[in-house]
């Protein structure tokens, strides 16, 4: 960031060196606030926390309202009354979400390190807030800002569309004209604001060379500095011949889960947002712990699922142990010279596997609760004996 600013002050394009890979709007923002950098990052974290607080409060209200309608319409079987959520239990959830985000050691670490991930998180949180409030225009604008920063939030289009359509009572049906009309509206707003932002960046810097530096960098992964992601080790040992193939495979992996998850979770778009955020932060090309902090902040919203979670103890132990082992093995590799990259990558793999297990565990718990709400809590087989539920 500092290098980019220095090059800009000299009148040279900041992307001519190979170090700077942020977007032009960010560099202009920092041009003004570089002396107050710490306050900017703290402010971004506070904005994220407040946005998440308001968004979750609104979402809870809607959940409770939907539940009330369903109870009145008598759609729940009699024995799953204990699965119904009460306002008392839901009262403190927005505060817990904000606290989870602010007090997460990962958030504090990324704020201290002054990583631009804090700003990305703030934009995504504002996008979530505007989507849940139902404001289509703002949602499209924030999503385009988030996509402009790093390409991956593009996958959040699908849950945003599903939520907004649900809120405006447009049925999600391929044969309806209103469905397609809404998609066209949203796409127009989204692409329009994206176009405006990209052209603004062009006019700010006077050239198009930020496009390969920013997006080319994210997509083609030229820099293999070790981080907590999965890309660096693979591509360090890859033959040049196969690099493009594996690059495509890895990048498609991020976008691939959108469609099946959207089909399965089309009634529950906010959970879909949570899953998408988790998938992005695990599989993106340069993840940081700030990305993880963002989706971990959502966990209190699903705290009513705790009785269906099966592996939460194992997963949390592994996550804790890996977070403690990361700096130890980094020290052993880089400073003591006694270990090598395999040790560090082993911990990275374990960390990512634990995250995947966490997300899939919550997914299982969510689906199971929905199943119980439809079919009753105590399942009986045809002959009346007790049945167990198995996820195949």
């Amino acid at each position, binding site marked *: 960031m500092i290098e980019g600013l220095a090059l800009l002050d000299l009148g040279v394009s900041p992307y001519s060196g190979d170090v700077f890979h942020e977007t032009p709007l960010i560099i202009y923002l920092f041009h003004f606030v570089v002396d107050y950098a710490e306050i900017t990052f703290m402010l971004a974290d506070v904005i994220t926390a407040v946005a998440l607080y308001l968004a979750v409060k609104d979402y809870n209200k809607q959940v409770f309202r939907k539940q009330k309608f369903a109870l009145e319409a008598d759609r729940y079987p009699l024995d799953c009354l204990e699965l119904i959520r009460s306002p008392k239990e839901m009262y403190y959830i927005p505060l817990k979400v904000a606290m989870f985000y602010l007090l997460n050691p990962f958030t504090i670490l990324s704020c201290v390190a002054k990583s631009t991930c804090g700003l990305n998180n703030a934009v995504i949180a504002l996008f979530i807030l505007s989507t849940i409030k139902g404001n289509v225009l703002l949602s499209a604008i924030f999503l385009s800002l988030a996509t402009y920063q790093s390409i991956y939030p593009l996958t959040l289009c699908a849950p945003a569309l599903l939520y907004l359509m649900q809120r405006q009572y447009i049925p999600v049906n391929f044969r309806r004209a209103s469905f397609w009309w809404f998609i066209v509206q949203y796409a127009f707003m989204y692409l329009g604001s994206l176009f405006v932002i990209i052209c603004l960046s062009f006019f700010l810097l006077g050239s198009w060379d930020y496009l390969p530096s920013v997006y080319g960098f994210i997509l083609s992964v030229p820099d293999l500095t070790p981080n907590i992601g999965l890309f660096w080790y693979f591509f360090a040992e890859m033959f040049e011949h196969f690099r493009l193939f594996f690059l495509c495979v890895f990048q498609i992996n991020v976008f691939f889960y959108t469609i099946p998850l959207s089909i399965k979770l089309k009634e529950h778009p906010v959970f879909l947002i949570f899953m998408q955020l988790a998938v992005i932060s695990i599989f993106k090309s340069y993840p940081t712990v700030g990305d993880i902090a963002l989706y971990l902040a959502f966990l209190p919203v699903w705290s009513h699922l705790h009785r269906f979670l099966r592996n939460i*103890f*194992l997963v949390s132990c592994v996550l804790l142990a890996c977070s403690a*082992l990361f700096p130890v093995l980094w020290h*052993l590799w880089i400073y*003591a010279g006694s270990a090598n990259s395999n040790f560090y990558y082993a911990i990275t793999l374990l960390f990512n596997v634990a995250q995947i297990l966490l997300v899939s565990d919550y997914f299982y718990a969510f689906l199971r609760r929905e199943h119980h709400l439809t079919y009753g809590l105590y399942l009986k087989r045809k002959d009346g004996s007790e049945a167990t539920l198995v996820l195949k």
Partner: protein
Amino acid sequence: MGLLSDPNRRRALISLLTRLNTPICLVCYMAGVAWFMGLAFEPFTLRTYMSENAMGSTMVEERFPAGERALATGREFAAHKKKVGGMPVDWLVKTMQARGLEVFTQSFSRTLPFPDENKERYMVKGTNVYGILRAPRAPRTEALVLSAPCSPGDNNQAVGLLLGLAQYFRNQIYWAKDIIFLVNEHDLIGMQAWLEGYHHTNTTGMDWSPLQGRGGSIQAALSLELSSDVITSLDLVLEGLNGQLPNLDLANLFYAFCQKIGVLCTIQGKLQRNDWDSVSGYSHAVQTMMLMVMKQASGRPWGDHGLFLRYHIEAATIKGINSFRQYKTDATTIGRLLEGMYRKLNNLLERLHQSYFFYLMPSLSHFVSIGYYMPAFGLLTVILLLRETHIFTGRYLSIYSACIGNSPLLIKYVSSQQSSPGVLSVLTPLVISHLTGVALYTLPIRFQEMAVEHFPVSETEAVVLTAIAVYTAGLALPHNTHRFLSGEGTEQGWRVLKLVAVLYLAVLLGCTALINFSLGFILALTLVPVAAFVTPHIPKVLSAFILVILSPACTLLFSVFFFQELQEMPVSFQDGWLLYLSVISQGILDHFLYGSLVYPLIALLVYPCWLLFWNILFWK
């Protein structure tokens, strides 16, 4: 994965673990200890071998001739040292210049946090003298270091040999790396100043003058300690700061040359025996290995080489020992050995990295690598994990067993009975234990002046006794915290606290064992039984006594006595206690002078963890 998603198999596995938990824990502990003891058994070890290709077979003849002249130079050095009363800087500079080296000096000073027995004063000032032999034909990108510490009264022959070797090396044309001959004052403090100056870092807050001459990146270093004109054996010291060890290839190099020249070589002062199948032979190997484990666990550098390891420089200390054996080796032979080692090190193309960095040596020709000794530690950690799952499932099994096939009303009644305890009842012992740990870390140094005013003790004793006082005061905590908290702790409260404490201990021991295996293993041996079996329901007096015996401070006390026993110098209780106090003061001093991590680890992390278990014992 079938195990994690299939509910029937899960339930079967969990019930198996819950029923057989205690027997499995005991078996694991016995297995871990037996595995560790079995590491010294010779068929389970591997013979050492040279891994680095560049140090392979070079059939050279070592020709160092001037052993007697080196001893004479050493006597001259001793005389000048006595005359000056410290390091004879001018004489050294003149002598090194006469031998054709580029000579430079470095002065340093350090304020000790408290004066220890050796130094007797707060400020330590000194000068290092070093001469660089430039490689005649190669570019000056790499260097080797030969150093001899200038201790008052000892080690004169080493300095003499160093100067003799300098003169001999100067006349050879095959050197491809610069050789730096270093004489450092005040042992480790001088070495730390020199290394910091060489690498432009300042991690320990020492004052030193910048180095005028440098030699490129250092590939390897040897430190010499010779106190007599003839020796009977050479001892190799490998353990460095924080338990870091040099690459095994350096030990292999030393052993290979001792075999070639025919000098007796020892490690930990013990000669190797060939009768591994007899009981005494096996116990000899176990003693050698335990000495290495003890030395590595202490985290202090056991020779001047210990500080090089932090900078990726493989280094070892060679000590000459003169005992009552018939065959004596003279200085010329030692000179030839060092010449041979340096010629081999000269051939290195890159830093030593082929062989192991983590190993244990039951003898100089056999070693145990990390893949063989880690399972011993792993078995001890498995006990902690088994206990974790036992506590965790124990909490939820009682709720679920009430749930199956019952009415919702009963379930609500059961779950309200076992309401989860507030976060406060778990957080309070955690915070208080860690505050005590912080007190143990900061108070001894801070209050030494006040202690010296009020009690008739020296500063060192004040620091150590304050540390012991804070440690013992922590034992009284549970009785006091319960007065602050309302009433007595709940039944669920101690289970949650034990869950957190066992997880904390497991992560802590894992991280420690990765950096310093010996320290992690010794802590695991004493703390894992504590963690596994402490509950508020066991008899209080007996278990309090056992807990204190297994606490870190008593482990240190027993280790001191055990260490003396292993070195065949058993001490009486009085001397042992004084030795224990000096070990504590050395540990604190090492932390402030060289950045050793043992003292902060024990004070800030291990001691609070043990206090949590002490809290659980006195939960009611």
